[in-house]
């Protein structure tokens, strides 16, 4: 498991990004903290790094995301474009209403597959195979 932790003045952790790949070839990226104009580049770097390593099926678990703004949305759209170029996928796990609302306002619920849990996403993936 790889981890990217961003520390700010005062030592508090604002964004943690971890990832692991299942036997099925699905790379789960768990994001914890606040995704904004300051921290989003860390998530962008992680997505680019994974694609460069040949990981083209990504699932971003957003259940521990406390804040998401349009910069974060832009990073996810950029990530999706990258994996699609390799016939891959980038889907999300999110049940938090306040985060889902941002996807609805911008119409991005139509762009991303959004699941209730990692297990749910894995199940649908197996079903689609």
């Amino acid at each position, binding site marked *: 498991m790889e981890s990217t932790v961003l520390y*700010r003045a005062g030592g508090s952790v*604002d964004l943690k990004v971890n990832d692991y790949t299942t036997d099925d070839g699905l790379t789960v990226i768990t994001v914890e903290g*606040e995704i*904004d*104009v*300051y921290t989003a580049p860390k998530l962008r770097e992680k997505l680019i790094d994974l694609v460069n390593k040949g990981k083209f099926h990504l699932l971003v678990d957003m259940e521990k995301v406390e*804040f998401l*703004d*349009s*910069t974060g*949305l*832009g990073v996810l*759209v*950029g990530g*999706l*474009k990258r994996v*699609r170029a390799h016939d891959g996928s980038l889907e999300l796990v999110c049940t938090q209403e*306040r985060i889902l609302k*941002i996807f609805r*306002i*911008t*119409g*991005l619920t*139509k*762009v991303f597959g959004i699941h209730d849990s990692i297990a749910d996403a894995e199940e649908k993936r197996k079903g689609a195979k």
Partner: protein
Amino acid sequence: MAIVELSFSALPVHVRTARLIVTAVARRSGVDEALLDEVRLAVGEACSRAVEAHRRQCPDEPVRLELEGSGGRFEVTVSDAVPGDDVAGRAGRSAAAAQEVAAAGSPEDLDFALSDGSVDLGLAVISGLADDVDISATPKGVQIRMSWPAPAAR
């Protein structure tokens, strides 16, 4: 009279600080707890937009915020020092444009629209979240004024 005024260097790291302060003042002004997330997000978007504009045009100029509570409203004005290019018009179009491009479901088109500025997700979020929004572009810069109900603000 503004109850709180804030100016900060145009650095992304300070946007979070601005969000925290605005949320605290909004709560104190009596903005409903259920609306605080919207205040936090909309103000964060306006600050991010201003920071990005300053970094391109005038990195040494600070971004300014005025928070005011009166007449049962909590009002936030975010001002930058970069003359706007029809930012108000773009805000009006962005929500619809984002929905339109997203509905087509192509991340390539959406990514392109984001990079060429025809879709501005930040402005789309502001338009969608603030109870009342007024965006004005003057030769001095862009002002985004947003307000929400605040029963305690008299």
